[in-house]
């Protein structure tokens, strides 16, 4: 029988051990499941975890895939730190890029990247507006933000489907639901390295992450706002005692994470697709939740977590091509990983004792 006893002091070593152990256990469990389903474990292991590193262009694609995960993940980090559960990042991603794309399509001849810069702001605005709905309902009427933000995901997916098949549809797309292609000014170019040329799909959007991570770290640790978020999430009554406004903080983190999700959407579409289509997000908003947890709600952690999860996603793509394993199976891994991570959190606060008597 297992018993838990509270620790006197929260274990710091588990902060790092937890995620690492969780990853290892998830891999083992996952491989067991695949073996049970009849797939060769060694091959699966290679395809999912090693093959993404096998070529330099594949490695750069890891970063491409990690890009939206990290950006949305950082946004979610602020929310989760304040104990606000924004589950609708997927919808905010979609609405952000929809608004920005619609904006861009108003300027079909513009070539300068100034357009792209404006799209960032518009995308932020779109995502933030979509997050505003659960935010205002929560702060004014105490409506649960989980369900509202989630319902809005379905609404957003239907809405972009409607817009792309309807008002924004490109008559030249011959039956495929696509908007007109973005002008050059709205695109994010691939990075061309001197002597090597392109590295996979690696694009300049990566620079945003290089900016975002240190900014996020400073925000958390060196600003009053970051402190307020931390206190609200740890002890709401103490936040009140300090004079921090729960409503203002809740609204701010939701708008911020919605906005960041929107920006992530802009980068994704402008770099990889170049026009609007009904499916612009492939579950990034939900996967980012796992990334945020795996990264222990810490910017540097989220950077690594995003890379790890992106690796698995790329690996799963490869596995689908070479072994016929459906891509959707990454959800399986992500769920198991989250379970182990959460158990790790419990172990930070409690000690385990095995006893053999009843």
């Amino acid at each position, binding site marked *: 029988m*297992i*018993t*838990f006893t*509270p620790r006197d002091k929260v274990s710091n070593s588990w902060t790092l051990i937890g995620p690492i152990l969780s990853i290892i256990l998830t891999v083992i469990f996952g491989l067991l499941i695949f073996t049970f*389903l009849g797939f060769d474990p060694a091959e699966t292991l290679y395809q999912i975890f090693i093959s993404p590193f096998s070529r330099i262009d594949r490695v750069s694609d890891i970063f491409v895939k990690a890009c939206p995960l990290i950006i949305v993940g950082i946004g979610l980090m602020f929310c989760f730190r304040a104990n606000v*559960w924004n*589950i609708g990042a997927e919808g905010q991603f979609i609405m952000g890029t929809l608004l920005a794309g619609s904006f861009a399509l108003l300027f079909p001849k513009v070539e300068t990247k100034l357009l792209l810069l404006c799209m960032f702001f518009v995308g932020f605005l779109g995502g933030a507006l979509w997050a505003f*709905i659960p935010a205002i*309902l929560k702060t004014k*009427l*105490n*409506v*649960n933000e*989980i*369900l*509202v933000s*989630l*319902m*809005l995901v*379905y*609404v957003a997916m*239907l*809405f972009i*489907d*409607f817009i792309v*098949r*309807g008002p924004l549809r490109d008559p030249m797309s011959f039956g495929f639901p696509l908007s007109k292609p973005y002008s050059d000014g709205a695109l994010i170019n691939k990075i061309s390295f001197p002597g090597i040329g392109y590295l996979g799909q690696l694009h300049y959007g990566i620079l945003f992450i290089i900016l975002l991570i240190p900014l996020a770290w400073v925000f958390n640790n060196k600003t009053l706002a970051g402190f307020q978020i931390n206190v609200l999430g740890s002890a709401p009554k103490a936040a009140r005692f300090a004079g921090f406004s729960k409503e203002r903080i809740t609204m701010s983190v939701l708008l911020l994470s919605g906005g960041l999700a929107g920006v992530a959407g802009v980068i994704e579409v402008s770099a990889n697709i170049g026009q609007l289509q009904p499916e612009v997000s492939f579950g990034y908003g*939900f996967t980012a*939740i*796992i990334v945020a*947890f795996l990264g222990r709600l810490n910017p540097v952690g989220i950077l690594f977590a995003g890379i790890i999860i992106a690796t698995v996603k790329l690996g799963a793509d490869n596995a689908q091509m070479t072994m016929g*394993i*459906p891509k*959707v*199976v*990454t*959800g*399986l*891994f*992500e*769920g*198991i990983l*989250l*379970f182990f991570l*959460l*158990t790790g*959190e*419990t172990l930070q606060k*409690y000690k385990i004792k095995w006893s053999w008597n009843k």
Partner: protein
Amino acid sequence: MESLILTIIATSIPLLMAATGELITEKSGVLNLGVEGMMLSGAVGALGAVLWLENPYFGIIAGAMSGLFMACIFSVFTINFMTNQVATGLGLTIFATGLTGLAGAPLVGKTIPSLPKIEIFLLSDIPFIGNILFKQDLVAYLSICIIISITYFLKYSKPGIILRAVGDNHVSAHSVGYPVKKIRWYATCFGGMCAGIGGAYIPLVLTPHWSEGMTAGRGWIALALVVFASWIPWRIIVGALIFGGITIAQLVGQARGWPIPSQILSMMPYLATIIALTIISSRISKNNSVVPASLGKPFFDTQ
């Protein structure tokens, strides 16, 4: 008209089952966000079982077992390992989506026989009402029986009162000597089975083949339904019918060529959920004794 009402009833059954199960779970103090995943498991389980065994009634059992399996995973983590219930529930839904995607892949394109209707002797001959209420399938009858039973269970039976007590104050329940964790396990497993049956109903009666994500957020709507019903069983029937009605209305609208785009019509159930939550939440914040007081709080038993 008759067929319209029948369709609305059929559409509301999955919601009814899942929400009823979740109500019991939440009454014990456990918030289970994995309902969507459990419904999906039920759907896939039912499809697989019926394709294999050919009798649709096996689908019901399979659905319940699949939901139960997921509920056990959820319970181990949230009840025994005391993990955060919200995150674990989300994780379960993500896990189940992946697992069912995997399991459902070989089932694509295959259809299964539907659940037959059972006519109740004599009563089914009543014009109009007879056709609506007494010519239903087993699950529909089951769902009504369950709701009536748990209404009585919660109010008048000692185990039901104990369940409410655990959800009201798990520390007191422990002090009085009740096994809080065991009770929560039972409640969560019951909820999981109901969600599984609710999910199974979709392929068994509504759309008899597999498609990824075929529950389309019904599990989340079921969660909202429990809040909307203020944790009172008969109100779930009302809520489920309303949402069933809205879902059907948009199909009717599309069929009748209403000038509203189909995607906008399809949004109706989700928007309606938001509106319903808003209305109820502003009422609840004045009177929060309807919410089980220990909802969402992990229980740590001192030994």
